[in-house]
């Protein structure tokens, strides 16, 4: 799974700075990662990786690290 590609999607969708601390990036704790931002993020990830998450995946996607795990589940 291309983690750098996922980081690019996160950066562009959530308007993240280059020096973002990925390990600390969590849903609802970063100003742009709101519920609406979350759905835009999901759409962007699904488009970029040509996958479709299950609803439970979307609910579970609570951090960047968790996102890596979930995307990997679909592409690897």
């Amino acid at each position, binding site marked *: 799974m291309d983690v750098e590609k996922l980081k690019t999607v996160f950066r562009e969708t959530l308007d993240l700075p280059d020096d973002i601390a990925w390990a600390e990036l969590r849903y609802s704790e970063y100003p742009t990662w709101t519920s*609406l931002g979350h*759905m*835009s993020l*999901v*759409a*962007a990830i*699904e*488009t970029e990786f040509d996958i*479709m998450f299950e*609803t439970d995946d979307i609910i579970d996607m609570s951090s960047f690290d968790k996102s890596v795990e979930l995307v990997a589940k679909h592409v690897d």
Partner: protein
Amino acid sequence: MSIEIDLSGRVALVTGSSRGIGSAIALRLAAAGAHVILHGSRPSENLAAVESELLAKGGACTVATAELANADAVKQLVKDGFGVAKRLDILVNNAGVLTEGVIGMISDDDIQRTLRINLESALIAMQMAARLMMRTKSGSIINISSIMGLRGAPGVMAYAASKAGLVGATLAAAKELAPNNIRVNAVAPGFVATDMTRSLSDDVISKRLAAIGMQRAGEPAEVADAVLFLASDLSRYVTGQVIGVDGGMIV
């Protein structure tokens, strides 16, 4: 000068399009150029006939079957629809069952089945479609409600509840999805001449017709025209609306 509605390049999923209002909607959208995903609960002569008619008229379609009482089947239906051309522009939640029964005599199974097919499947399809439409930041979702969902009538409590639920879902989704340029509207037909309404008793049919200002039943194509408007760019600034197509019916 004339205005032409052009849906070419767009993909539309119409649930319950093997007959009645659904087939009329599918044919209208296809005539406007959309690639239509025809849906039925199972392969049937009706579904094949709609496919043949649509293709004979120069339209494009894909046939899909799914039992809408099964949530996973609904999700797969929307995914498959998207898979046809990697896009989904129009979702018409039309499929429905009409259950009649006086209060106190409606079985639990009938209540559950009516809500599952008429309402729950539509909510699941809306969730899936909205996610796919967010990718392109555009789309139109049209829920086929009913005048019974707005006004009610004796003998159709479960059906009316399911159709009223669709109105609530339409209003809520329209507000939530507007920032993504995804429009959500509903059409509320009155008494339309279909197999579903023909199954009603003669007494009920007579009462319904007497309540219509235009003094006739509607035609499926007349509902389809309202859907075509909502599916097209002519309604690009219209969302969260319920359009009655009822000939001035008073219930």
